[in-house]
């Protein structure tokens, strides 16, 4: 399985570390919304098909990546930097701008 790192190019999966389900939305640290925390910790889509995932190119440039992997075929249909997107996404949510 190859993942095409947006910085390093195509690399063997052995260079990458799985960082978990990319669909999760972490509540704000001070949040007391137990349902939101429960969803963050336990709820998974577990799809048979395309799955949003977070991987780190730990054996290369060490960037965190948003990867779409097909759980049936292991086909990687996209890999992009997770950085800017997640940062701004979290901030927008906190400010209530969606």
């Amino acid at each position, binding site marked *: 399985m190859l993942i095409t790192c*947006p*910085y*390093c*190019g195509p*690399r*063997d999966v*052995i*260079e990458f570390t799985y960082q978990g389900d990319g669909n999760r939305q972490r509540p704000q640290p001070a949040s007391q919304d137990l349902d939101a925390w429960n969803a963050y910790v336990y709820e998974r889509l577990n799809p048979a098909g395309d799955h949003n995932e977070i991987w780190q190119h730990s*054996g*290369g*440039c*060490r*960037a965190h990546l948003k990867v779409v992997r097909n759980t049936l075929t292991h086909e990687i249909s996209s890999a992009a*930097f997770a*950085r*800017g997107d997640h940062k701004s996404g979290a901030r927008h949510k906190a400010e209530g701008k969606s």
Partner: protein
Amino acid sequence: MAERQSPERQSPERQLPEHLSPLEPALHPGSHGNFEHGVDVILSETKPGSILQLAAWPGEEKQLISGIRTVTGLTLPDGAGGGSTNGVRSVFGFAPGKFTVVDEAEGLALAFADVVTPAIGTLTDLSHGRTAIRIAGPKAEWVLAKFFAIDFALPAFPLGAGRSTNHHDIFAQIQRTGADQFDIYVFRSFARSFWKALCHASEEVGYEVQ
């Protein structure tokens, strides 16, 4: 950033501790392996005086690149993993917004201190933390291809460019510093083990240690 003494008070030579090579017990100059029909790779330790890692905050990459040019005189080509070398100093990108800068001379961190300001990014002096190993010769690509799952061919890995990868969990930064020459930066604590493996891998082609 740690406090450092001003250059006026002490010369860089006096400030910096002596470099000790971790390869020393395993570095045996001369020809080895299957060299009867010629030596196809040359292995050496380049012992640069300075190895720095520079990182730009998001949005400050251009400032950092221009600072690198100011201090070293080296221009970074556009694109991921781009780099250049003039034989004395070398620079290459190894991650988004991050660069390794190497100088034969010691004290490069001092020269960057006023250039990489806290507003632009960070500077980490790895001069004693990394060991630089050079592999050169017609079979350098061949030997490295046994170690790393990346494309070493010149069109895919141009002169001056850098790559971050690893061999059996030993993280390595590799820069192409010649048509058939590569400089490999590994953690100092793993360097001797890596060196021994590199020697074994070079036996079949015949190698010389300089």
